């Protein structure tokens, strides 16, 4: 069965420090991979996506993610975190064969300290 795991429920980083949010997936087919961000009281906004090709993808707001097939991972990174990055982050997976829906992880809540 398809599954997405975000091992960290909460992460706290200092402003200006680097960030890495983990995402692991279990999928039979070649997956499409997404990271979404949700600010408090808001809907989800797409940060970046991976379909194929270059395994390092760049997104909005200075985020990037790297697809590692051997580790079934798609970790999100940012070299220097800003206070406005405090939010909930969701990893999601889909493919050509699972119909039309995405499978979401349970989310990682990011707190940024001064």
């Amino acid at each position, binding site marked *: 069965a398809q599954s997405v795991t975000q091992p960290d429920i909460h992460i706290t980083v200092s402003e200006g420090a680097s960030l890495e949010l983990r995402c692991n997936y279990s999928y039979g087919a070649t997956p499409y991979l997404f990271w979404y961000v949700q600010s408090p009281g808001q*809907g989800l906004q797409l940060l970046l996506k991976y379909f194929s090709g270059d395994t390092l993808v760049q997104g909005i707001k200075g985020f990037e993610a790297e697809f590692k097939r051997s580790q079934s991972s798609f970790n999100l990174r940012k070299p220097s975190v800003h206070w406005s990055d405090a939010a909930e982050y969701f990893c999601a997976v*889909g493919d050509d064969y699972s119909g*039309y*829906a995405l499978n979401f*992880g349970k989310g990682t809540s990011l707190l940024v300290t001064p």
Partner: protein
Amino acid sequence: DVKVTQSSRYLVKRTGEKVFLECVQDMDHENMFWYRQDPGLGLRLIYFSYDVKMKEKGDIPEGYSVSREKKERFSLILESASTNQTSMYLCASRGTGTEQYFGPGTRLTVT
């Protein structure tokens, strides 16, 4: 830009009431989705629709139904609201690509 709107940001209903949550998208997308979001559980798919009058159950359809009479509008219906349906409800749409576009959400409280 794709715009997905939801009829209410906040809604308070009583147990047993029939509740309608409306979602409208302006990009002529074929696919529309309803999720509920609960702390620690992430997003769970309730129903989705891939065309007008077509619908498919998601992971947690019990207690819900949907209606899609027009391409741009996808409604979620709680036939008889219960307190365990208190949640954040998110609507999304998707066109020919795989990216889903989300509305701002409706926070429903059932008392």
